[in-house]
């Protein structure tokens, strides 16, 4: 599992991602708390398959298979086909449960639970890691 807690250069990274992908970048305060998480696609499997993230988290899927995949969350988003090495990024701003699957191989499934942010920068995360 690869989870990156980005502390430095967060604003620049968020701004870059925002500009690159055409997403609105929330204010500097909100983006300072943003996290970036990576989901690998390998052997027709999403890893990690289940994720719980804070609102505002940017998730990037990377296809490491020799076959294209797509990321589809019905009613929410649909990626272009990702060839080997291609990435798809989505920023989860709304709390809720997001089920997704591969539009080409629908037996491949994953889910992301987005929790509301508490508003406190210094509050420890539930799993004990500090922000």
């Amino acid at each position, binding site marked *: 599992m690869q989870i990156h807690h980005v502390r430095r250069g967060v604003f620049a990274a968020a701004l870059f991602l925002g500009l690159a992908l055409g997403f609105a970048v929330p204010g500097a305060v909100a983006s300072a708390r943003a996290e970036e998480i990576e989901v690998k696609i390998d*052997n*027709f*499997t999403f890893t990690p398959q289940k994720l719980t993230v804070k609102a505002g988290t940017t998730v990037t899927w990377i296809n490491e*298979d*020799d*076959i*294209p995949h*797509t990321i*589809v969350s*019905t009613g929410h988003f649909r990626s*272009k*086909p990702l*060839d*080997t090495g291609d990435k798809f990024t989505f920023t989860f701003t709304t709390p809720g449960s997001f*089920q*997704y*699957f591969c*539009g*080409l*191989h*629908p*037996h*491949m*499934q994953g889910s992301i639970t987005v929790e509301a942010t508490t508003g406190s920068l210094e509050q420890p995360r539930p799993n004990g890691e500090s922000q």
Partner: protein
Amino acid sequence: MSAHDEDTKDGVSRRKVLECMTWAGTGVLWTVAGGVPTSLGIMGEAAAQTTGMTFLQISDSHVGFDKPANPNALGTLEEAINKVKALPAKPSFMIHTGDITHLSKEKEFDDAQKIISQAGLDVHYVPGEHDIIDEDRGKMYLDRYGKNAKGAGWYSFDSNGVHFIGLVNVVDLKGGGLGTLGDEQLGWLENDLKGKSASAPIVVFAHIPLWVVYPAWGWGTEDGAKALELLKRFGSVTVLNGHIHQVMQKVEGNVTFHTARSTAFPQPAPGTAPSPGPMKVPDDKLRGLLGIASVTFKPGSARLAIVDQPLQG
């Protein structure tokens, strides 16, 4: 009732699926009579024995694929078409059971067309999931191949007394599901079969296997059983699929199921690898795992012979 019938009622366990499959060997001719597949011998003998209408199946050409499992998928497609051109008797036509391209790109469709047209045969296509991932999700495929088709590209036609039905089971797939035909297409199929004599031989072709081969890898069609129910009253039904890039055959009552090799790359046998996907084999083994299929129908005998011909070996 055969063991196969019982299996499909309650969902099929992996063990039973594997038990029920007949693995067809390289270049072996299968003649189906009375629901029992019989091996008649190798291809040379077969060619001498068969007269009647012959058509070809090619599948999964994945033009644009360039990964280690086969860096030149266009080249092996050309080798397959050269095999077709070299056949002693010219087949009536060809069917392509999908995944013509790898990424639904204009150039991939163009390249495929350039090579496949060299066979000088009419080609009847159905799309694979790789053919409908353009921006408009299938428009490019339909613009090229869907002129006389309904819906996402399904249609039927008759040739030499055989009724051919091309189905699409790669559109609007649902999370956790398998291939899907959908109610609209099933309704069309019911209508299409209405009034057809039960003695009319039927050939159904689609990309993903219509029967459930291996659900853990998504190899099957969710509502394939509904289509088979509509075909139940016919005395001779042959279902030809691709998608799994290997030869597999099963007979259930009057229905023969058969999958063809890819012309691009092999995939592992069900359950023998952590996942499906392109399988890298030694270079000198690749062409033994790629190939085409020829299908011969003898009028009056309701016999249908399928010959799988590898590119090499």
